[in-house]
């Protein structure tokens, strides 16, 4: 017997569940963490994984969560950390004083040389990308 539409709930697809997506992202991150900066492999891997996620995000192949039609009155608070970060990044970039007054990238580069932290960074990047795709 056919159920009324309002009583039916669409079951999440197997690949859309965290028990599937998290191990997949972890494997992709471990692979990405093996590629050194400025290597051809790293460039191709970022282009490939990012390109695939953009394709998924722009097509209708992945179910999306409903987006808010209005933001709460406290949305303006998000401007504060963005401006603070932007000011420091802008000033350090323009001054170009190297390690004496480093940009965020310059501070992050030595940390990202280690394979473990690099894999963690890959996981954060891919995980956030996947969340964006599903929004």
């Amino acid at each position, binding site marked *: 017997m056919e159920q009324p539409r309002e009583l039916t709930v669409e079951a999440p697809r197997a690949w859309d569940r965290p028990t599937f997506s998290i191990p997949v992202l972890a494997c992709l991150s471990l692979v*990405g963490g093996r*590629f050194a*900066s*400025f*290597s051809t492999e*790293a*460039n191709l*891997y*970022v*282009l490939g994984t*990012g*390109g695939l*996620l*953009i394709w998924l*995000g*722009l097509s209708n192949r992945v179910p999306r*969560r409903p*987006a*808010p*039609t209005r*933001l*709460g*009155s*406290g*949305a303006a*608070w*998000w401007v*504060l*950390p*963005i401006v*603070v*970060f932007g*000011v*420091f*990044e802008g000033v*350090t970039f323009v001054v170009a*004083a190297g*390690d*004496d*007054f*480093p*940009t*965020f*990238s310059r*501070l*992050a580069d030595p940390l*990202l040389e280690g394979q473990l932290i*690099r894999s963690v*960074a*890959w996981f954060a*990047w891919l995980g*956030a*990308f996947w*969340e*964006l795709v599903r*929004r």
Partner: protein
Amino acid sequence: MMRALAISGFLASLAFFAVLEWLARRDGSRIPTLGEMCAYVMRYEVGPVPVGRIGLFGFWWWLGWHFLAR
């Protein structure tokens, strides 16, 4: 001295992000979460072109390339 200032500034902005996300996740909060902010931005379209979606995906892709590939 200037190096410490730069590190403090970046850490402060990251701490602001974390505190705001924590505040946004409390019950009855008027502050939207970062995910809701992104979802709202991604709703922006010009005609049939999902400009907000393309812009945010492009920015995130560039960020990954900048830190993990170049």
